[in-house]
């Protein structure tokens, strides 16, 4: 086997309910600002859940206009904006727009894809029949319109495709990108994820599934690992990372944000929606082996932490199964209390929080952890950020369908 290459992050883009750039996002996290609000995108009077982490639509449109971009689909819009931030930060946008072609792959994850376009197309079809469908319904609605639009907009000439694996989608996208670079199939990959759950149809599906919090108090609804948790809260957004080989980054004197050193994945092969501690634990062990590290080297676990009864208890058991005694001393955080569950984008946004934590030597706080559930016996981070003792962090993402994925990142110290 060829020598494995080191993989580093040189660009970050974040469009989130907590802010439309990484600096605002991180500042708000450290300040304990909650991005969950009463839903404004549509009327929720028939819905059991009325809160969510929405991205500010006016600010999103203003950002698109400032970039000279025309809105097409909310998921795609957010993915494009996250991408331009990451590419710009990495110094990879040249001569544009229109930009010069660059040999960069584009891999994004999504749960529902271009869901607003799908909803609008179906609504129009229901009202007017086939004549109500736009001629461009197919290219607008296909899930890979996300990476197709990014590839065309920024002229990224490497392969482009979309990963669909529920809530692990963007973590898988990062994991695939990591492996492509590590094993020599690519030098640079723009990867991440995007999802926009706030239309009456997609949100309605989640509403009826019975896994969402019914707490009408936006700031208190999402409570990972807390005894009073009653379900997840949805969010929306997009995140993008420019990953490249260390050799490539050093050769062009790029500013390195972090190293990605491990990725693991597994399937529960048991149940569509109920998680399995065994499956998750296998995945964490796989990631540790991939990174070549031992559990005691982990300084922070950024949990999947959805705030459902089932996930948080199961994840607590799986962390102990995988890390053993070392789990006693590792701080565990859960970012969803700040902005909700971003579905296919949750992995990348929470991984960005992990990278920012490594850079700033901070473990971000958990909101709403008033009474930790005794069934979640971990060293849970409370309302105050903690100092990060070790330069290595683990990010968990688990999804419906029994998908488990874990990334391991390391602070870049030159």
């Amino acid at each position, binding site marked *: 086997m060829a020598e494995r290459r080191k993989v580093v992050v040189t660009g970050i883009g974040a469009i989130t309910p907590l802010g439309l750039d990484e600096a605002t996002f991180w500042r708000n996290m450290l300040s304990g600002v909650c991005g969950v609000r009463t839903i404004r995108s549509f009327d929720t009077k028939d819905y059991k859940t009325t809160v969510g982490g929405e991205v500010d639509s006016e600010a999103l449109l203003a950002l698109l206009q400032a970039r000279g971009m025309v809105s097409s689909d909310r998921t795609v819009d957010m993915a494009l904006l996250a991408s331009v931030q990451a590419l710009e930060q990495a110094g990879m946008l040249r001569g544009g727009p229109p930009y010069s072609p660059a040999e960069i792959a584009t891999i994004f994850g999504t749960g529902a894809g271009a869901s607003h376009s799908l909803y609008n197309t179906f609504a129009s079809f229901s009202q007017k029949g086939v004549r109500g469908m736009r001629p*461009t319904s197919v290219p607008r609605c296909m899930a890979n319109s996300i990476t197709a639009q990014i590839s065309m907009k920024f002229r990224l000439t490497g392969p482009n495709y979309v990963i669909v694996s529920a809530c692990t989608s963007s973590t898988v996208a990062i994991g695939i990108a990591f492996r492509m670079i590590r094993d020599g199939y690519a030098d640079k990959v723009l990867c991440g994820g995007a999802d926009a759950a706030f239309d009456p149809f997609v949100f309605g599906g989640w509403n009826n599934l019975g896994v969402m919090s019914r707490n009408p108090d936006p700031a208190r609804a999402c409570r990972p690992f807390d005894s009073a948790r009653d379900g997840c809260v949805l969010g929306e957004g997009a995140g993008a990372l420019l990953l490249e080989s260390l050799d490539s980054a050093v050769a062009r004197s790029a500013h390195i944000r972090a190293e990605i050193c491990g990725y693991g994945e597994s399937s529960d092969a048991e149940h569509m929606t109920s998680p399995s501690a065994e499956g998750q634990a296998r995945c964490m062990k796989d990631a540790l082996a991939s990174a070549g590290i031992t559990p005691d080297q982990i300084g922070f676990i950024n949990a999947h932490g959805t705030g459902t009864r089932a996930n948080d208890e199961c994840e607590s058991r799986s962390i102990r199964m995988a890390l053993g005694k070392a789990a006693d001393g590792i701080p565990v955080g859960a970012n969803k209390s700040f902005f909700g569950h971003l579905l296919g984008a949750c992995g990348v946004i929470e991984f960005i929080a992990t990278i920012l934590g490594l850079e700033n030597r901070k473990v971000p706080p958990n909101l709403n952890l008033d009474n930790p559930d005794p069934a979640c016996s971990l060293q849970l981070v409370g309302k105050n950020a903690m100092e990060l003792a070790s330069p290595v962090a683990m990010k968990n993402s688990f999804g419906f369908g029994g998908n488990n994925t874990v990334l391991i990142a390391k602070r870049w110290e030159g």
Partner: protein
Amino acid sequence: MEQEEIIKMLRHIMKQSSHEKVDWDTVTRESTIDSLGFDSLSILDLVYDIQTTCHVAFEAEELIGIKTVGELATFLKSKMAK
């Protein structure tokens, strides 16, 4: 509807359908449709939006040969008169 009114309406519709940043105030009857950010795909959306807004029916193929905003307005005026 007079041709100037049709051109004003077209500016508004094109602004929604175009994928390019265009100064729509400077669009005149002589402006070419290609220069306004429409390609072989997005022109289909433009046809759809015109038909929906103007309540006229025509096939996209009928636009073959039409190059400018003025020619499009003349075509639409004839369709709306029927």
